[in-house]
């Protein structure tokens, strides 16, 4: 960043650094927002290829927003083609053998409820909440990724938490 004129995304080492910095966050964002059905990995690739094609127009400091916007649009195009059912998969949790069957069952039911509740959240709430809880990101990091204020992130996450608890109570 010493000399922005020479920091061109067309240079391979710059592009590679951008990829390493943003690809995982972008992938997670797409996953939390749209689920796994539309293959977020492919969209990440496509978004980076688009960045490469437009590297002369997009300076590295703007690359993040370009990538998120592009990937998001690619996803929305794909969504327009098919009405998707969100499907967030829960990974198998480690279960200790000394737990009682009742407890295991209860856990399973709770998890199913949580999944439904998560799918009922707005996209914005779900993305922020899962980045926070599942990725362990702090409000400030999420705010930077999504280009919104920390306050807005806080509001979304807290709102998501409230809604989840209400939904789980109801179910």
């Amino acid at each position, binding site marked *: 960043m010493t000399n922005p004129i020479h920091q061109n995304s*067309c*240079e*391979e080492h710059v592009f590679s650094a951008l990829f390493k910095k943003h690809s995982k966050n972008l992938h997670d964002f797409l996953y939390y927002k749209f689920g796994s059905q539309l293959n*977020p990995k492919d969209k990440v*690739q496509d978004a980076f290829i688009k960045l490469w094609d437009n590297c002369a127009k997009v300076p590295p400091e703007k690359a993040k927003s370009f990538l998120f916007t592009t990937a998001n649009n690619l996803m929305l195009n794909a969504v327009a083609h098919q009405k998707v059912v969100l499907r967030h998969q829960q990974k198998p*949790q480690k279960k200790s053998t000394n737990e009682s069957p009742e407890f295991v069952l209860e856990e399973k039911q709770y998890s199913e409820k949580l999944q439904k509740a998560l799918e009922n959240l707005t996209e914005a709430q779900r993305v922020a909440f899962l980045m926070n809880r*599942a990725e362990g990101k702090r409000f400030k990091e999420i705010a930077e990724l999504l280009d919104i204020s920390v306050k807005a992130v806080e509001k979304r*996450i*807290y709102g998501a*938490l409230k809604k989840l608890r209400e939904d789980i109570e109801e179910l």
Partner: protein
Amino acid sequence: MEREDLIKKWLDYNLNPEEQKAFEALEDYEQLIKLSKSSEAFNAPSYDSEAEYETVSSKLQPKISKNWIRPLMRIAAVLLIGFSVFYYTSNLNSTTSTLIAEQATIELPDASTVELNAVSNLSFNKRTWSDKREVSLEGEAYFRVAKGSKFDVITKEGKVSVLGTEFNVIQRDDYFEVTCFEGLVAVTYDSKYIELKPTQRFTVHNGVIRNNVENQTAPSWINNESSFSSSALELVLEELQRHYEITIDAKQVDTKQIFTGSFTHNDLDLALKSITLPLGITYTKNDAVIVLKGE
């Protein structure tokens, strides 16, 4: 209000030890922790950015701006090929060849002209012409050389050097003849150096050197006629076969006898008569084969 703040701080992973205690004292602490723990399991599938980068970089189009050397190399290659071809062709000798009954006029780079007789070959190098006026000759040619530096005619038999003149050179098999029509001609033959003045002729046949006199102002073949003075008949017949597509069978006559005279290039019968009548020979014609018989 404090409850909400605590939860928000907890969400932001920002509780200090005191606040942590207060948070743990909340009545729904257990529920919050349970919700949080269960949510963790919904994290995104693992993403290997190294492996993904490999995939992406293999799909990227190479950048023109990045690989500016490549198109430059292409241009350079084209230029190189073009230049090589030009250099090669410009260095290549210009060659003119004539077939039976064919004559050619060649303009040399300095406005000298060469008349090339039938079945002859002349070559010279355009590029080195300004340094060295030099031509290679096989066969017969009549030179009108523009004034200037030394002009050399290289033949298998010997070298002819001039300074600006008109002369005729014949080099056929074992026959070598130089006739000077104007100016001064120097002939180097077999380490001998001979100077010819106008009308002088230098002849070597089968290693026998002769000096003759030529009275014409230009070789007769320029006017579609071949002239001989005291030449062996075999040379005359060879010359005849260069101007007509015929085969001559002269086994029954003495080809060493001397012939003086000429024959035309336009009429075979007339040419045959011009040669045979003075020598008292008869001929029969079978298509392209002429059989000569002594009387």
